[in-house]
């Protein structure tokens, strides 16, 4: 199953929790979009499907 995390194709990712763990150890200040839609933290264990695109976002410097 191929999942895209922050624009990079990855293997062995079954849930959003896996996708987050693949790019950061942080949990505070993190938000996730699945195929463009916000996924609340309470639903991060939801299984992903082949071709899903996950965005893992956090705060960065900005005006």
């Amino acid at each position: 199953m191929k999942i895209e995390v922050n624009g990079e194709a990855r293997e062995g990712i079954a849930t959003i929790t896996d996708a987050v763990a693949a790019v950061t150890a942080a949990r505070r200040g993190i938000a996730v979009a699945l195929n463009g839609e916000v996924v609340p933290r309470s639903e991060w264990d939801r299984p992903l499907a082949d071709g899903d695109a996950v965005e893992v976002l956090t705060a960065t410097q900005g005006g």
Partner: protein
Amino acid sequence: MDQHTTARIGTARDADLKIADKTFTSRLILGTGGAANHAQLAEAITASGTELVTVALRRVDPGASGSILDVIERCGVELLPNTAGCFTAEQAVRTAKLAREAFGTNWIKLEVIGDEDTLLPDPVELLDAAETLVGDGFTVLPYTSDDPVLARRLEDAGCAAVMPLAAPIGTGLGVRNPHNMALICENANVPVICDAGIGTASDAALAMELGCSAVLLATAVTRAADPALMAAAMRDAVSAGRAARLAGRIPKRHLANASSSFDGMADL
């Protein structure tokens, strides 16, 4: 002006800045974009006296050392996420919802830009996004052009403040249309926050003298040769501009008006 004097103006002569359900003693909001590193940013935040700083939402950087969230927490200031980089209402609404999820705040600095060269707001998309976000319970602070009609429409849509630009983002050109800025301030029933285009302290002071409730700036401080010193200058400029506004400036005159009376002048 030292902290003590600033506070005295804040309590004796002026009310705190109130935006939605929050009050602020400082009338300077600092954007964090452009700082060379977190240590320099922390110094600038402290020197500015701000109580509210903006952040953007981006993909996590696995190689990043330290989080800006730690800087904000250490400085004891509040965080205002923005929707910088969004070109459509749909993108901005999604970004706002992600920011709410990430930071647990329903406050959002709403930016919807029209093109990459000017970074000017797209008024149609901006108003559309503002209406959607207000309806979804957000406290919306829109970055807008210096158009009094659009400012009124944003206020009517339920925005908690309006944030007209002084000049395009990062230009440092100062208040390009003081007349429009003053008109927006005269007509608004929500705080008017001058956002973007400030270059130096006199620009910030002018915005406050024109009637703005606060100033939001980033580049002018973060890319100054000495960011902490410029942050202190901006703090003082905003305080001075506010005080001058409250004090009531003298009218401008075409011809001179002697301050020393001619009465009793000796016949020499």
